[in-house]
C-alpha cells in the first residue's frame, strides 16, 4: 500500500456568506474583494510546510495539482510547488506525486514533459507523473480550449509526452493540434523507460478505457467518498478484466478526505466547520460548468442524460454528520478512521495507491499539522501492509522507492515539524 498526502491549497478565509453572495468559487470569484496577496503568500508557504511535514511523518508521497482562477485550490503551476518539495525531500524515500500539470493547456505540451523530467532529475528519480485531462472550468472556461477539442488535444499530448521521454532519436511530430519539427527533450527523466504515469479522472468511461489501454494507474478523485464511488470503480475493474489486464490493486488510486482526532466527538468539535466550509464554499460551482456542450462525446452525453441518478447529491444541503455518515469524509478516532479506510475504501474499491486530503477548506495551519501527525502516527502504519499478502508489485511507483517506506514516525518525536 502506498499512501500519499494530497493538498489543494484552498483560500482558507472566505466570508461566511460567500456562497450566497457570489456566483462561483471557480472562474469568477473577484480577487480584489476576496483575497490578499500577502495572505496568499502565507498560504503557499503553509501548504509547502504541511506537505513537507507529511513527508517527515511517514507518508509515501506528496501530491500537488493544477487549477486556475479559483479559491478552491489555486496552484496554477503545480510544478513550482513540486520543485520545492523535490528539493526539500532529497535524501528521503518520499515520492513527488504531481497530479498534476494539465497537458491540454500547456502549449506545446512538451513543456510538461520537460518540467517533469526536471523534477525527476532534481528528486533523483522519485517522480510520479500525473497526466490529468483538466477540469472543464480550468481548460475550457479559464484557458479557452474548445470543449470539443479538449479530449483530442489531451490524447495527442499524452502520446507526444510518452514518446518525447523515451525516443532514442530526434523525431518530428506532425499532429493534429501540435506540430514540432525537432523533438529532442533536454533533460530526460532518470526513471526508465519513463516515470510512472497516473491518470486522474472523475468516472468517465472513456478515461477508464484510455487508462487501461495505456497500462497506467487510474485515480478516481472524488469528494463523495467510497460508497458513491463503488459503482464507478467496479466499472473500472470490469474494463481492466475485459481488456485482459491483471487485477493488481496498484492500478487504482483514490482520493479520500480524512480527519483524525483523539475520539469521534473531538473530531466533530475540531473539524466540522472546516469540512462544511469545503463542501459549501470550495465546491460552489454552477452545475452546468462541469459539462460544457461538446466536452463529452455523443455516446457519453447520451449515457449521462439518460442516467440522472449519477448526479451527485447537492452538498449544500448536508452538514458535517451527513458527510461523515455518507463517507464523503472519513472522520473520528484513529481506530474509526483505520477501519473505515481499510474496509470502505481500500478493500471495497481495490485501491493500492491511496491519497488522503488532510488540510480541508478553512482548516488552519496548526490544525492541519495535527491531523497530518495523528494520521501518520496512528493510522498510516496499520494500512501499509494491506495488500502485502497478495504479492503484487506496484509498477506505478518509482522503482527505487517500491520496497521502502517513508521517514520513520519515530523521527517526528526527535525532530518535530
Amino acid at each position: 500500500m502506498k499512501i500519499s498526502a494530497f493538498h489543494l491549497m484552498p483560500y482558507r478565509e472566505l466570508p461566511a456568506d460567500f456562497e450566497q453572495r457570489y456566483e462561483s468559487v471557480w472562474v469568477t470569484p473577484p480577487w480584489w474583494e476576496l483575497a490578499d496577496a500577502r495572505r496568499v503568500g502565507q498560504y503557499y508557504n503553509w501548504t509547502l510546510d504541511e506537505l513537507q511535514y507529511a513527508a517527515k511523518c511517514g507518508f509515501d508521497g506528496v501530491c500537488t495539482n493544477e487549477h486556475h482562477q479559483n479559491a478552491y485550490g489555486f496552484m496554477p503551476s503545480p510544478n513550482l510547488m513540486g520543485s520545492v518539495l523535490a528539493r526539500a525531500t532529497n535524501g528521503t524515500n518520499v515520492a513527488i506525486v504531481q497530479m498534476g500539470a494539465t497537458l491540454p493547456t500547456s502549449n506545446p505540451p512538451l513543456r510538461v514533459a520537460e518540467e517533469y523530467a526536471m523534477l525527476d532529475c532534481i528528486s533523483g528519480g522519485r517522480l510520479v507523473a500525473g497526466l490529468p485531462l483538466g477540469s472543464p472550468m480550468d481548460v475550457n472556461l479559464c484557458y479557452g480550449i474548445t470543449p470539443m477539442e479538449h479530449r483530442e488535444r489531451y490524447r495527442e499530448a499524452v502520446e507526444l509526452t510518452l514518446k518525447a521521454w523515451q525516443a532514442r532519436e530526434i523525431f518530428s511530430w506532425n499532429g493534429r493540434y501540435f506540430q514540432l519539427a525537432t523533438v529532442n527533450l533536454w533533460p530526460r527523466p532518470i526513471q526508465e523507460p519513463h516515470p510512472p504515469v497516473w491518470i486522474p479522472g472523475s468516472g468517465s468511461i472513456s478515461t477508464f478505457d484510455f487508462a487501461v489501454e495505456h497500462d497506467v494507474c487510474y485515480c478516481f478523485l472524488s469528494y463523495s467518498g467510497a460508497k458513491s464511488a463503488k459503482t464507478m470503480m467496479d466499472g473500472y475493474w470490469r474494463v481492466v478484466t475485459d481488456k485482459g489486464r491483471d487485477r493488481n490493486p496498484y492500478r487504482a488510486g483514490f482520493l479520500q478526505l480524512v480527519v483524525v482526532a483523539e475520539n469521534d466527538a473531538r473530531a466533530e468539535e475540531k473539524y466540522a466547520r472546516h469540512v462544511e466550509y469545503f463542501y459549501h464554499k470550495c465546491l460552489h460551482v454552477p452545475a452546468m460548468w462541469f459539462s460544457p456542450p461538446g466536452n463529452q462525446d455523443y455516446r457519453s452525453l447520451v449515457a449521462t442524460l439518460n442516467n440522472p441518478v449519477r448526479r451527485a447529491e447537492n452538498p449544500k444541503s448536508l452538514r458535517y454528520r451527513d458527510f461523515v455518515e455518507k463517507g464523503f469524509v472519513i472522520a473520528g478516532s484513529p481506530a474509526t478512521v483505520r477501519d473505515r479506510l481499510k474496509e470502505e475504501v481500500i478493500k471495497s474499491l481495490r485501491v493500492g495507491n491511496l491519497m488522503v486530503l488532510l488540510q480541508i477548506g478553512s482548516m488552519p495551519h496548526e490544525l492541519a499539522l495535527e491531523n497530518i501527525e495523528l494520521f501518520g502516527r496512528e493510522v498510516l502504519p496499520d494500512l501499509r501492509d494491506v495488500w502485502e499478502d497478495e504479492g503484487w508489485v506496484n509498477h506505478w511507483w518509482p522503482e527505487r522507492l517500491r520496497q521502502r517506506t517513508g521517514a520513520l514516525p519515530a523521527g517526528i518525536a526527535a525532530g518535530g515539524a
Partner: protein
Amino acid sequence: MSVRVEAPIVAGAEARTIAVWQGRVRVRVVSKGRGPALVFFHGPWGLTWDPFLDALAESFTVVAPEHPGTTPEAHDDIYHLDGLWDLVLCYDELLETLGIRNAAFVGHSFGGMIACEVAAAYPDRVRRLAMVAPLGFWRDPDHIVNWMMLEPGALRAHVFRDPDGEAARRMFPRSDAQDAEATSARVRLVWAMGTTGKFIWPIPDKGLKKRIHRVKAPALLVWGREDRLVPVAYADEFTRRLPGSRVQIVEAAGHVPHLEQTASVVRVLREFLT
C-alpha cells in the same frame, strides 16, 4: 459525394442526406417550397422546422442544411472538421452537390455568421444575404453571454423575449421532464451547441472582420430590439463594413425575432430577397 433521400421530417418537405468532405461528413438537407432557392443556415440550437420556414417556403424553395454533427446517426462526423476554413469549404461542396450556383442566403445567429463567411469566401454564390442577429464580432463593452454555459431556464430567458411562449417551447425541451422524449431533445440541444460551439469558442470573433469586405451581395441585418444574447449594437459592426446594407430592428423581440415576430420578419425578408 453521395445523396440519400429520406422520409420527410415535415409535411411537404423533402429530406436528403448528402455526404461531402471525402464522404466523411454527412449533412441532412431539408427542403420545401417553390420559387427561387433560399439557403437557410440555422443557429446554435439545431434545425427546427417552424412557421417561419413554412412562410418563406410560400415564396422560395427553402433549402435548410443541418450543421455537421447535428444530423441523426452522423454525430461523430463533426470530428472531421478542424475549423472554420474546413466548414466553409464543406458548404461550398454541399451547394455544388445540390446544384445551387447562386441563391439567397438567410442565417440566424451562428448560422448568420456562417452565411456571411460563405458569402465572403464565395461571393458569387450569394444573390442576397439576410442575417438575423448574426455572430461574428466582439466588442468588449458589449459582452456576448456564453449561452452554452447557461442553465436551461436562463438559456430560454436569454434567447426569447417571452421564455414561456410557444416558439420557446418548440426550440427548447422542458427542463423539468425526465421522459425519453425530453431526454433525447436535451441530447439534441446540447450536441447542437457543442458542434456549433466548436467553431466559435471561447469568443465568436474568428476573423470575419478581415474577410467580410469580399461580400458582393446586398445585405440586410434583422435584429430584435431586446436581444439579450447578441446586443443590437453589433448591427453597426456589419453595416459599417457592408456598404449599402441596412438594418431592420424588430420591436418586441429578443435573439430570435423571426420566431417571435414571424409575420413582420417574413414580410421584410420577402421584400428584400425578391
